[in-house]
């Protein structure tokens, strides 16, 4: 018997190879749904807010799983679980930023089955959108979160364009900070994008969070050696210590020249529709020594241009405070 809060009738394909998966993705296009760990998927389906015809389960495709060291850094298959990443010694040694971020995702149970790819391409948590309301992001012509009565304490302070939803991914901020490259494949082509351009805001494409076109699949993430073993900082602020999305998070990668910062990439999560680079802070901190004074001096730059909504002004001091902590000596 059909029941509104259990799974709907939906086709399930379990291809054994990436090529087969891509052929299915190509066949179903918008009506297909790539299924990784399922941790974002099942909620959508149970609520009938998304109604794909077919689930294409890629979680058991060997090519998509595992962590491989190469000359160009490290390749991580998109279906690698967060637990596997957290437990990987070489990532822990060279790119602990990603481990720190992955460790803060949801709960142990979810990290055991949730995949890196799934964490990166997961949809926004905007409650209005997830309830299946016809907002801009769902193809409608209104934003329910950006109104005087709306609950928007979780929403964006940067880069809104009609939609004020934020990127919920913890690992996305880390991978943008590490300047990772995304490998994207479709049935007949393959391309790569820098992580920063993989995530798209509402001004670019209001119904998507990433650059993936229908029929395309994120197959792997490559972290370049540029930042291997550098100084990292990750912190996530949430209402609850675990099993919660970030109100604000920060991922920072810094290379030092003596005591001074040679280069830095600082990325905030939970504040914009994409991982949000703090370029003003990055510029200002170059050449400076990490210290409380430097932190206090540059932190206010992090919120320059921020446009808080009715109920999320509290995010501004949080952003600045996280920058402070990232840059303390």
């Amino acid at each position: 018997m059909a029941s509104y809060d259990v799974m709907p009738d939906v086709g399930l394909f379990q291809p054994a190879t990436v090529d087969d998966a891509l052929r299915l993705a190509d066949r179903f296009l918008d009506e297909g749904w790539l299924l990784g760990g399922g941790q974002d998927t099942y909620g959508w389906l149970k609520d009938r807010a998304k109604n794909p015809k077919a689930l294409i389960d890629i979680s058991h495709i060997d090519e998509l799983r595992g962590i491989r060291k190469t000359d160009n850094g490290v390749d991580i298959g998109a279906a690698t679980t967060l637990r596997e990443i957290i437990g990987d010694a070489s990532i822990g040694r060279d790119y602990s930023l990603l481990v720190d971020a992955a460790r803060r995702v949801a709960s142990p149970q979810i990290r055991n089955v949730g995949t890196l790819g799934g964490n990166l391409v997961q949809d926004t948590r905007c409650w209005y959108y997830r309830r299946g309301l016809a907002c801009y992001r769902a193809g409608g012509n209104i934003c329910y979160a950006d109104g005087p009565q709306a609950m928007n304490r979780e929403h964006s302070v940067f880069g809104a364009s009609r939609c004020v939803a934020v990127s919920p991914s913890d690992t996305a901020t880390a991978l943008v900070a590490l300047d990772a490259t995304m490998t994207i494949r479709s049935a007949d082509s393959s391309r790569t994008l820098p992580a920063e351009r993989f995530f798209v805001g509402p001004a670019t494409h209001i119904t998507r969070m990433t650059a993936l076109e229908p029929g395309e699949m994120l197959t792997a993430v490559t972290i370049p050696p540029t930042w291997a073993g550098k100084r990292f900082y990750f912190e996530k602020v949430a209402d609850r210590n675990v099993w919660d999305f970030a109100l604000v998070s920060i991922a920072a990668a810094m290379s030092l020249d003596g005591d001074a910062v040679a280069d830095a990439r600082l990325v905030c999560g939970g504040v914009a529709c994409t991982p949000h680079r703090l370029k003003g802070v990055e510029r200002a901190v170059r050449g400076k020594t990490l210290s409380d004074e430097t932190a206090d001096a540059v932190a206010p730059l992090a919120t320059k241009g921020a446009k808080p909504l009715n109920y999320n002004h509290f995010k501004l001091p949080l952003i600045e405070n996280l920058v402070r902590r990232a840059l303390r000596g």
Partner: protein
Amino acid sequence: MDDSARQHSGERISGAVGTPIPHDSAHLHVSGAALYTDDLPEPRGLLHAAVGLSPVAHARIAALDLGEVLQAPGVVDAMTADDIPGKNNCGPVVADDPVLAPGVVEYAGQAVFAVAAESVEAARKAVHLAKVSYEELKPIIDPVEAVAASSFVLPSEVIERGDSRKAIDAAAHRLQGRVSLGGQDQFYLEGQIAMALPREDGDLFVYSSTQHPGEVQHLVAEAIGRSSKDVVVECRRMGGAFGGKESQPALIACIASLLAHKTGRPCKLRLDRDVDMLMTGKRHDFVIDYEVGFDDDGLISGIRFEFAARCGMSADLSGAINDRTMFHCDNAYFLENISIVSHRCKTNTVSNTAFRGFGGPQGMFAIEHVIDDIARYLSRNPLDVRKRNFYGKTTRNVTQYQQTIEDNIIEDVVTQVESSSDYAARYAAVRAFNADSALLKKGIALTPVKFGISFTATHLNQAGALLHVYTDGTVHINHGGTEMGQGLFTKVAQVVAEELQIDIDRIKITASDTSKVPNASATAASAGADLNGKAAQAAAQTVKRRLIQFAAEHFNVEPSAVRFENNEVLVGGQAIGFAELVHLAWFARTSLSATGFYKTPKINYDRSTFSGRPFYYYAYGAAVSEVIVDTLTGEHRLLRVDIVHDCGKSLNPAIDLGQIEGGFIQGAGWLTTEELWWNEKGELKTHAPSTYKIPVCSDVPEEFHVTILESQANREETIHRSKAVGEPPLMLSLSVFHALRDAVASVSNYQVLPGLNAPATPESVLRAIDGQRAAG
């Protein structure tokens, strides 16, 4: 002798009173085999219901057109208030709670109409096809607004003792303040659900997830225009209730029953989480004003409280809940000159209801807050000020409602936890840590609990039980209590096992059923085991007396020579198996079935003057919590908790330990992460776990030391001298809130009173820290 008796000869029965046996359904809970209402096999032709909710807080329904709803695929029927054959009411005390809105809606989330369809999906989809037009009226949302407008569900109440005004004016020091305290959703894992099955001749059988089957029975009967004899309500277990299933299930059961009655087909209504949270009541949130006068030691000479509780659109249980607030705003302290004003505010929000503690936590929050303020104002250790104000044992021992406290052990309890937690040294260590730590700050607090046990409405303190003994020596026990995971059924079975001296696995625990035990009170007020344990014991004693009588005659001995012991009955010098004796007794035509009844003695209380003895006894406890706060983000963690809690002589220490731990963590959730947020239009916006955040496993502190103060037998003659344990431990969590205040206060080097409201979410902690910096 039967086998079982031989096997256990010389040992104690299994499951005796006081043994820490597991919950009777633990193996079913963990394996998923326990049947909750939604797991029951669905009867042929079952319809599924869905409810159309009001989207607005206050409006006249100008037009209501269900035409398209009825045309929708799978829909069988629909109904509005006009289709209710009996009374349109599911209010437990006052008849002001309509099942379906009768022309006016009074909160966003109120049930306006109901649909029955062949599937849950069809019913829920069809709901959205209704055409309802609302003429909006001005809503009153918050309690302060309600007080200004004199909008009340029940008259305001006052308790006065002495002359608080004069005492405050004459005091060496005075403080006043206002603090707001959020509500809490019960967040039972199993949502509200009922399944109604028509029986012959218009009768109904209703499965309901309810703490109060009797009330569901009466209200369903009235709604369908029949009498109580025509309706039977059954509940084997609930997946959590916490007070949220004391009065609220009547609404769910009435809707399912009305649709079953109308269509002649069985009907099930199961709310999804969002609808459940929008539609059903929660813990009352309060705005509390206080004024207090005290001396240099912090001894309170006079105090005035004004409570404004958001009751929502109807009275529900708000009268008794707010009475309990007035009875607990002393907590463990003697308040000689006191004035309490309690407003029961009518607001256009969901009608708030029972939740573990039942108004007590809010009253205790108030006095603990005042004491904490006094200590900070005087730069004293808050524990010293607490102790200075404790009730005495022989003097200073009369409450503001004129009950003399006869069982005061608060100092023993506090002394024990003070020492086991090493409070004094850690209090100093926290201050030393804070002096050296710029960004992370620690806080520590010890708070006591004294909680009155009994329903304050005296007539509810009664219970019944029904016990059958079968010829194979096994027993069927039934009583008016309900099982919500708290272990009541296990405890009652232990009482029966003890009384009949048989192993607990010979006793069948059975579903609460209005046709077995009538007119039972709700399983509430922590009194489930106290009341039903005694009633079951009385039933067992009746059968036992008959067996003794029979044995004496049969074996020709004096009745005093018959003794029940470890699955055997000793008759003179001879032992006979329990089953063997039962079989002989049956053969000799002895009745092996009995009812039992119990009413709590000694209590007597006059509500018109708020005086007398509302409580049979008090349960005590104390907790020390230590927290660490990140002053850059407001995030905090509970580092260590030490609890000493009084269970009298525990019926089952394993179950009581679970209640203490669970109650404490649930209370910590109430005071920290759980935030009910209404917008200005009165729409609840935190109505799912995505935005409403209950504690999870990782929020349990790594160091969590719970000690049951077990040797202390209840001085009253309760069931095996045990004490109630359901609600009291929740309030131990006040120590978490005050530890957070302590940490926040350290930002101004303890110079500024922390302006921290509850819940102390990271956002509100950060705001309080900013307040410290701005004022410091």
